[in-house]
């Protein structure tokens, strides 16, 4: 059974600081997704990582994938309040299904 774990579960950080969210998974996979969910809203796709060593960046967010370590990271650079949300990673081992992590709730304070 595929297990996907994220840490931390909750992260409070000051504006301007850097931090990293970690996503570990238990079974070999080379496809990993990051989603963002604002409070009371739906999920939006952020990144798709499709191979070992893949790195994607948009704005202050950068995601990477190490399939050998079964680890993905979401790095936040110089956080701003607008990044406050819950971030989910999700992994697939069959083409049609995703298994989601428990989510990391990020709160960026002034």
């Amino acid at each position, binding site marked *: 059974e595929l297990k*996907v774990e994220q840490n931390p*579960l909750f992260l409070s950080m000051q504006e301007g600081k850097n931090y990293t969210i970690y996503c570990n998974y238990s079974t070999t996979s080379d*496809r990993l*997704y990051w989603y963002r969910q604002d409070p009371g*809203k*739906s*999920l*939006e*796709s952020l990144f*798709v990582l*499709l191979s070992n060593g893949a790195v994607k960046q948009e704005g202050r967010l950068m995601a990477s994938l190490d399939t050998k370590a079964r680890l993905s990271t979401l790095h936040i650079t110089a956080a701003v309040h607008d990044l406050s949300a819950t971030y*989910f990673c999700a992994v*697939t081992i069959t*083409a*049609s*299904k*995703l*298994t*989601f*992590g*428990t*989510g990391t709730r990020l709160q960026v304070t002034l």
Partner: protein
Amino acid sequence: NAGVTQTPKFRVLKTGQSMTLLCAQDMNHEYMYWYRQDPGMGLRLIHYSVGEGTTAKGEVPDGYNVSRLKKQNFLLGLESAAPSQTSVYFCASSYLQLGAGNIQYFGAGTRLSVL
């Protein structure tokens, strides 16, 4: 573009009542999914469909049934609601994209309370 539309947005049921949640997508996607989201547990897959007329069980299928009679619609039924089914339900759709995997597009969610 409407994308993925869920109906209703909110519902309160009494234990033992039945209801159907409707998901409609206008993107011609082959795959559709129903998830539930509970605090501290992320999203858990209830049922999914890989094409019209097909359905399959996910991680937490007990107490739910689904049907996909038309490609654009995916219905989730609760035959006899229980308080444990109080949750936020999300529908998603997707298709396999060469070089982009299986990006799922989500509806706005249905908040269900079972008293």
